[in-house]
Every structure is written in structure tokens, then in C-alpha cells.
């Protein structure tokens, strides 16, 4: 089985190769890269290309590894036991599988996306090591073991907010999504806005790459911002763009107050444009 990208998700050769590695070796695929380079979308593309259902686990700063496996709602059980109108003897009714548990228990193969793993506590990835390695875990309350019948395809994204532990990294296939070069970017734009005026795309790309090379920016615009911006331009029916003039919908590209300020100082002689 080889991954080739989908109609709406263009990939580079090395990314395809990394996905193939992860599929063949049945290891988790760790994806890093600048925000907005399509890390999360990759999981959707993989799920679409392979025809497996996608399960998503959005990791938050409060997420615990246990939440991904299963949650035992003890309070609900205690509460139900007070009024004697529920059968509380069956503990299974109070066990809920998390995304990882669901992917293991499923009858068919799933694609599991663990999104932004670096958001959680430092210990979070370490706590998942064994489960991801062996693809099985034990529910302590019922002494039942959940073993993955079909090992899910695990895709993990990280924004580099925290370093991941070495032991975890060793078990992953790693890929760093580079910022697309102009040629690839043009193809990406074409996929998203197929009928856009070519001259406008040319100008927008020029402006975009000039903005990216403008070093005073705190947050450089990325692919998703360019795509959004082009959508706005398309909707407004504009025909031409210039970096030194009032740039329309600049708010779609620059998201920080300081960046807007720096931009207006550098390109518009201090006049503030309407975002």
C-alpha cells in the first residue's frame, strides 16, 4: 500500500516516503513543521487515501494519557447508586473508551490523529509509550485487556512547544514539513482556487513571499493564510495588487498587532490600513 496524496492534499516525495515507512513498519508518524503547513490535514488525507475512518484526539494542556484509553466515571456510578433506579452492578456502563481505546477496539483499521501532542504535560508522551508500542492496554476496573485487532495508523503532530522525550522519538517515524517552495505553493493554490485569475495569483504570490522574507514579523504568514487571503481576494473581485499600496484584507495574512504595525511602517509610510 503506497500513499500518494489526494486531489486536495499535495505532498512532497519525502513526505510520501515517510508515510509509507510508517505504514509498512506500523510505527506512529510524527509530523512537525511551521504552523499552517498542513500537519493536521495530512491525517485527513491519509484516512481518505486509505479509506479508513479517522479518529481525532485533540490534546490539551489538561489532557492525560489515561483519557485517551478510557475514563471510568465513578461519580456517576456513585450518584446512580443513591436512588436505586439504575443497575450499577455493571461497571462497564460507566467505562467510556477514549480515542486511542476506540481505535484499538474497532473491528476495522482506523487512522488515529493525536493532534498537538506537545500541548500536554511533559510526561504525556512517555505514558503512551507502551500502549503505542504494543497496541494493547488493560482496563484495571474490569481486568479486561483491549488488544488492537487491526493496528491503527497513528499520526502525531507537534508544534514544538515542548521537547518530546527521546524514548518516545525513537519509536516514531519523523517528518518535518518544510515550507513549500514557489512551484509547490502554486500547485497548492491551484488545488484550492482552480479558477483564479493567473495575474492575480502571480501578484499575490509575490506579495506573500515578500512578506515572508520581511524579517521584522513575529509570525510569518503560512500556506493556510495565503489560501484564506486568496479566497477573500476572489470574493472581492479585485484585479491587481501591490505591496506598497493599501493591501486589501491584510488581516488575513498578519495576525499580530505588532506585525501590522511593522508592516505599515515599512510599506505604507506609517498609515494604518483597515484590516
Amino acid at each position, binding site marked *: 500500500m503506497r500513499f500518494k496524496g489526494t486531489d486536495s492534499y499535495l505532498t512532497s*516525495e*519525502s513526505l510520501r*516516503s*515517510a508515510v*509509507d*515507512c*510508517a505504514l*509498512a*513498519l506500523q*510505527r506512529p508518524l*510524527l509530523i*512537525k513543521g511551521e504552523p499552517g503547513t498542513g500537519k493536521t490535514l495530512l491525517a485527513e488525507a491519509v484516512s481518505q487515501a486509505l479509506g479508513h475512518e479517522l479518529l481525532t484526539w485533540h490534546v490539551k494542556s489538561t489532557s492525560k494519557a489515561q483519557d485517551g484509553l478510557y475514563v471510568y466515571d*465513578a*461519580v456517576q456510578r*456513585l*450518584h446512580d*447508586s*443513591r436512588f436505586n433506579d439504575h443497575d450499577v452492578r455493571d461497571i462497564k456502563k460507566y467505562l467510556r473508551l477514549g480515542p486511542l481505546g476506540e481505535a484499538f477496539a474497532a473491528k476495522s483499521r482506523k487512522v488515529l490523529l493525536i493532534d498537538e501532542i506537545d500541548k500536554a504535560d*511533559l510526561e504525556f508522551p512517555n505514558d503512551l509509550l507502551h500502549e503505542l508500542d504494543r497496541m494493547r492496554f488493560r482496563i484495571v476496573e474490569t481486568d479486561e485487556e483491549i488488544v488492537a485487532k487491526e493496528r491503527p495508523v497513528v499520526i502525531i503532530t507537534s508544534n514544538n512547544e*515542548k*521537547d518530546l522525550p*527521546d524514548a518516545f*522519538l*525513537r*519509536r*516514531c*517515524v*519523523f*517528518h*518535518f514539513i*518544510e515550507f513549500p517552495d514557489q512551484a509547490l505553493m502554486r500547485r497548492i493554490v491551484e488545488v484550492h482556487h482552480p479558477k483564479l485569475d493567473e495575474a492575480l495569483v502571480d501578484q499575490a504570490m509575490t506579495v506573500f513571499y515578500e512578506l515572508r522574507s520581511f524579517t521584522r514579523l513575529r509570525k510569518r504568514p503560512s500556506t493556510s493564510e495565503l489560501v484564506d487571503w486568496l479566497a477573500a481576494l476572489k470574493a472581492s473581485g479585485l484585479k491587481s495588487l501591490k505591496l506598497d499600496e493599501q493591501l486589501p484584507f491584510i488581516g488575513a495574512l498578519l495576525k499580530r498587532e505588532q506585525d501590522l504595525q511593522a508592516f505599515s511602517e515599512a510599506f505604507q509610510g506609517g498609515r494604518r490600513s483597515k484590516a
Partner: protein
Amino acid sequence: MIVPFLYELRAHRVPVGTQETLALAEALEHGLHDSSLDGFYDVARALLCHSEAHLDAFDQAFAKHFKGVESLGNELHQQLLDWLKEAQGRRPTLTPEERALLDQLDKETLEKLFAQRLKEQKERHDGGSKWVGTGGKSPFGHSGAARDGIRVGGPGGNRRALRVASERHFQNYRDDLVLDVRQLGLALRKLRAFAREGRPDELDLDGTIDATARNLGELEVKTRAPRKSNTKLILLMDVGGSMDPYADLVSRLFTAAKKATHFKELRTYYFHNCIYGQVYTSAQLRDPIPLGRLFAETNRTYKLLVVGDALMAPWELMDSTGWPSDGTEGIVWLMRLAELYPHCAWLNPESPRGWWQTTIEVVRRVFPMYPLTLEGLSLAVEQLTRGGRA
């Protein structure tokens, strides 16, 4: 071929080990590299690198290790072209159909076509037998050339992988400090101390069951505050003068401390040579904060880590040039600090062999002193967590 490459990687400080080697071997067994150097580059990078900081080193190692392979590929290319010329010369041995085919093309177009096919070979996924030698349909397919043809798959791809590798795309992501900062960070991690503090919003299951049972089955939910790190650290750092040679090392320690997420509070201040009445919030010794204010804002539970060489002119210890100058000498300020923060330690980048020097000797009597090495830091951290001086 692979194992020496892994050692090359290790020489470039890409941490690869047995596990990576086995994974790579397994991937190659699966044929994921499409029998080309190109594919090998992608597969190896995905399996052997674990961080974008290592990608540049990987590219360098790859370019160095596989440089010879590229020219080998070119040689093969040349060999094939030579063989073509020869084949035209050997016309009598060809069948009439083959001769007819060859006659359609003169040498130039043949070579051009061949070069074109060689280029196209990059796109193809099956090892190359198709191109040179599919039962006489192709003008190039005859008498064992197919074997050469397969090997041509190499050069077409080689050039890309090696080109990509020598372009060194990932230079900007390189960060040689990472390893050391991480090691320091790990040492600092031992400073964690957990305490239950803040709003009680975590279910205390045992407490609830206990309370409910005592309540004769009437549900009583108990909550407790979540466990949070409770470590508060004050980092004081000597800058300028005799500390300049150690600036890099010290800045690594600071990076590690700043990156650590397990401190409830981290205050960093700077001073020059000795502390008199105030410390500075910037390394340029600007924005002073009087020690009195620091004392007021903090308390005994803060841990104090001083980084400095404690080397100065002896008079500096006895001087009282501080602001506001109230006649308190530097050494007295140091003693006050050590007294107010019982959990304290001094890290000295000077080698312990030089610690007999006068001012260091004096400061050592005030603060427990450790060398600024990984081991020394671990000892200092131990001292800080043990608390109180021996």
C-alpha cells in the same frame, strides 16, 4: 553500506542506535526505498532523524558518505551510451526487425531518446527493467543490457538526493546547544517538588468513598486541589569581567532554566562580581531592583542559585559601594542572602582546582559551592531540594 553510514551519522552527532538501525533494515526489506538512493534518502531521513535540529547534520553526513556513488552512477550512464554506439556497430548480429528499428533512428536521436528515458526513470517505481529491455520493443533493449538498465535507476535518483542533501535546507533548524541545554534541563528537573495548592477542583475518589461510607451511603463528594509544582527559584548570575569566558556555558544554563516548565516561579537577576544592595533585571546591568524589595516579595521557601566565579579583588568583598549606600559590605549582603534563603547553592564555572584563591575561599564559607558541570549541577540541585545547610 548502511552500518558505516550510521557511524558517519553518529560522527555528525545525529543520535542513532540499534533501534534505528533495525527499523531502517526492516524498511529496506520492505523495499520502501524503491531500490534507489533517492528513496533511501527519504526513508533513512524519516527513520533516523527525530528532530529537525538533526536534519542538517543528516544532510551533511549523507552528502559526505554517498558522494562517490553519484559519480559511479554517471559512469554507468556513460557505459550505456558507449554500449549503444557499439550496438550500432554490431548491426550484423541483429535480427532484421531490430535492424529496421535501429535504422529509423540515427545515433544522435537515439542518444537523445535514451537520455530522455533515463531522465524519465525517476518517475518509475519498479527498478528499471521496463526501460531497457522489454522484449525488443525498445530500441535499446537487447542482449543483456537490461541488467545495466536496472542500475541506471541509481544515477537518475542519486542526483536529486545528493543535490537536496548538499543544499542543506535545514541549516536554520540546527541547534547544537540543544543537547546540552536538554541535559541541563534534565538536571534541573529534579528540582520539582509537588504540592496540592489552589482551588479544590479534582475529585478525591478515596476521600469521596470514605466520606460516603461514613455518611451511611449518602453521597458526599470530596474534592482536592490538583498537584502542582511548587518550586520557586531565584537565579543570580555574575556577568562581565572574569565571567566572560564562561558566558556561553552560563547562557546555556539560563536557557535550560527558562525552558523548564516545572517552576512555579523563576526569577533571574544579574550582578557584577559581588552583590551590593541591589541586583539587575537585565544582563546589561540596567533596571536595578533593591535587594530589600526582593526580600519583601519572596520568602524562605524560594530556592537561591547563584552562578559566578566569585573571583574579585579582595577589597570588593569589603566594599560598600552599593545603592543606597548604608555601609553594608558585599560579604554581608552575601551572608544575608544565604541566611534568608536556606535552600541555596553557588555554581562556580572555575575549576575546583582554583578554589583556594582568596575570595572564592571566603564565598565558599557562605554558600555551598559546586562546579558548573553537569555533575556539579546535580549535586547543587540535590542540595537545594534537601534544604538547609549541612
